[in-house]
């Protein structure tokens, strides 16, 4: 806990509660060395949920009992309001801002539940919304341009003037160059609490960044002063990255030296232009787009460009391309949030499985490579079916077939699970070694109620006796049995059965393997084992002899000879 306390730091105090003076409001906080300000978007996680939630922080405060809390306005994932979508087809990275009144609009959450900053860009054509640049759109985690009214359950492109009592402007993108007219001597004032503090900070970053740009010549003194005073605040590179992302200057991102020049122009204008923000913003943006060759100066085309970029970003997922070109062999890439997967303490897998079965989100994938790791299955499903899932390989034991790997996969929703099963039935997902992966629902085994275990004998008379006397403080009854007992003889019979069972399982698996390989009149199938077990890929139809050899080789790799026990005692 001490660690956690160290990791958390409040920003500047902005005031106290009107009713309860002990409630203290803040403008920002730093948690795990990431600074979050008011009106930042962030991921929050509620233990036990399948997904993180995305929201906008609108209040930060500490309660009299020193609980650190935030009021947040939620963004909805389209999947969460699936029932109300109607014929609206959301983009893959689209979110919907909560609006109206009622539950689901906003909540007070614990700040410790924060996961990371989230870059959400508003693409609304609303006049109050500063248009995002192409670069920003490309870097955005999510976009939104519609609201979802939680009381009417309706989707709208219009934004009310206030959402949850907060001016809607604060939900839109941040103004470009806002407050950058402030002379640096105002530093003290800057630190003064205010609603616009965070916006202001982003614009400062902007200046910072331009300071760093190599081709910048003739900087105004003001800015360098500003930069220096801010240095300390932004030493954290991660924070800097974030802030720049949520900051607003498109041209800063331009790497080409020649393109940086117009930016300077706009920047100087920025700093000295007395015109109102909005107008200036447009000016800045226009300049920016002019400077970037090939980007049209017209606003609406710019918007179209933005859409294209969003689509392109979607297509960056390997799988997308793969879905269109079916012949192509694709490589499974790591899921982008691979490192994020271990952030939270997960519920025990068994509990999750039970829950998933009740919710209908549980699918059993069969015919996987037995040597797959659970993470690889997750990656595979992500790349092939574009679903983020929880997966676990079924552990190999005496009851599993060594030829086929199986895994339980928990999907986010029932429809996703159904879609995946449908997709796996309509066409075949072939993994590298030529296996078609199958998916189906399987119910979990209901643990058998019977207390007896075949092979463990208890004498009826002794049973009663034992319960009375010793059973209560009996410890463990494990022992090696000696050859001069009745028990030993009986145990030998069991050994015999166990040895026999090994033999018949081996025989079965060998037979099954033979069947699989006897179908091997095709490259696909011969791939089945060759690539998996690093055998040379045979060309042409293999003769029976070759097949035998192949089987033996595969068998030795599969460790089919289960007789690990020396059978001398049998």
């Amino acid at each position: 806990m001490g660690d956690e306390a160290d990791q958390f730091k409040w920003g500047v105090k902005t005031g106290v509660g009107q009713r309860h003076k002990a409630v203290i409001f803040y403008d920002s906080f730093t948690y795990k060395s990431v600074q979050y300000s008011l009106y930042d978007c962030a991921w929050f996680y509620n233990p036990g949920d399948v997904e993180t939630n995305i929201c906008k922080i609108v209040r930060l405060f500490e309660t009299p009992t020193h609980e650190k809390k935030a009021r947040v306005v939620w963004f909805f994932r389209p999947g969460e309001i699936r029932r109300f979508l109607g014929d609206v087809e959301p983009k893959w990275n689209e979110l919907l801002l909560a609006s109206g009144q009622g539950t689901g609009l906003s909540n007070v959450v614990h700040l410790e539940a924060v996961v990371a900053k989230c870059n959400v860009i508003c693409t609304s054509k609303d006049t109050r919304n500063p248009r995002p640049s192409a670069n920003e759109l490309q870097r955005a985690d999510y976009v939104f341009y519609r609201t979802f009214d939680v009381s009417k359950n309706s989707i709208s492109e219009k934004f009310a003037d206030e959402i949850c009592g907060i001016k809607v402007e604060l939900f839109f993108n941040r103004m470009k160059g806002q407050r950058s007219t402030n002379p640096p001597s105002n530093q003290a004032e800057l630190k003064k609490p205010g609603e616009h503090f965070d916006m202001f900070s982003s614009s400062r970053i902007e200046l910072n960044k331009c300071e760093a740009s190599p081709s910048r010549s003739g900087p105004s003194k003001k800015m360098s002063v500003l930069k220096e005073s801010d240095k300390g605040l932004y030493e954290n590179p991660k924070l800097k990255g974030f802030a720049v992302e949520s900051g607003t200057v498109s041209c800063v991102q331009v790497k080409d030296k020649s393109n940086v020049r117009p930016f300077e122009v706009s920047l100087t204008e920025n700093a000295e232009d007395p015109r109102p923000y909005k107008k200036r913003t447009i000016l800045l943006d226009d300049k920016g787009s002019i400077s970037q060759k090939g980007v049209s100066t017209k606003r609406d085309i710019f918007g179209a460009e933005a859409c294209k970029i969003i689509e392109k970003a979607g297509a960056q997922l390997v799988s997308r391309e793969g879905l269109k070109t079916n012949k192509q062999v694709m490589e499974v890439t790591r899921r982008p949030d691979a490192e994020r997967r271990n952030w939270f303490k997960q519920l025990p897998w068994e509990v999750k499985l039970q829950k998933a079965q009740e919710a209908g989100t549980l699918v059993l994938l069969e015919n996987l490579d037995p040597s797959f790791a659970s993470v690889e299955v997750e990656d595979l499903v992500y790349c092939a079916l574009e679903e983020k899932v929880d997966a676990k390989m079924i552990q190999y034991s005496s009851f599993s077939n060594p030829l086929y790997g199986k895994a339980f996969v928990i999907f986010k929703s029932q429809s996703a699970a159904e879609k995946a099963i449908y997709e796996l039935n309509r066409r075949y997902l072939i993994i590298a070694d030529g296996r078609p992966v199958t998916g189906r629902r399987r119910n979990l085994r209901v643990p058998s109620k019977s207390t007896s275990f075949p092979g463990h004998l208890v004498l009826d008379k002794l049973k009663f006796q034992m319960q009375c006397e010793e059973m209560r403080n009996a410890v463990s009854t494990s022992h090696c049995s000696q050859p001069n007992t009745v028990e030993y003889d009986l145990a030998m019979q069991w050994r015999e059965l166990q040895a026999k069972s090994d033999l018949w399982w081996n025989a079965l698996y060998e037979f099954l393997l033979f069947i699989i390989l006897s179908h091997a009149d095709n490259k696909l199938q011969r791939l089945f084992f060759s690539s998996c077990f690093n055998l040379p890929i045979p060309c042409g139809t293999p003769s029976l002899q070759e097949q035998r050899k192949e089987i033996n080789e595969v068998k030795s790799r599969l460790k089919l000879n289960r007789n690990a026990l020396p059978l001398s005692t049998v």
Partner: protein
Amino acid sequence: MGTPNKEEYAAFEDKVKRTVYIDNLSPRVTESVLRTALNQFGTVVNIQFIPNYLVPGNIPQCALIEMETSKQAFSIVSTLAQFPFMMSGMPRPVRARHAEAEMFDDRPIKPGRKLQFRWVDPSDPDFEVAKKLKHLCRKHSAEAAFMHTQQQKKEEDLTKQQEESLKQNYKKYEMIDGLLADGTARRLSCCYNINLGDD
């Protein structure tokens, strides 16, 4: 990605070597029973029961026992192969063998492996083959399930048979006990002139 991944996998492989797989365990066996039973071979580091989600029926449990050194693991395997080892019941002995990587559900990715996949549409020439293979997969799992029921039947048969013979044995012992108690044995020994005491 490179080296830490490899290190992780090497650590995992080491863990596999130190681990023993035990099956034919009664459902009544708990972690503490296992721990006390196997602590005589060395220090038990970790115990994990392999959950069984799919195979129906009253089937034995399996467990992975991680020991401190691979030598200890080896001694468990060899001892349990030599002597029938009873745990929480008699006379069905448990079995031990060395664990394999596939038995762990948290196994890390094998370093250097790249997964590939492709979709085969109905128009694809490979479609038929894939269909056949898929069918085989289903069929084979059905066959394995059948084998399981057969095996369970065999086990139950053996149990019944042993129960019978045990009952007979018990009866015999009880009879002898009774004869000794009510003096019949003594009378008979006098009759046949056999000295009971020294035997």
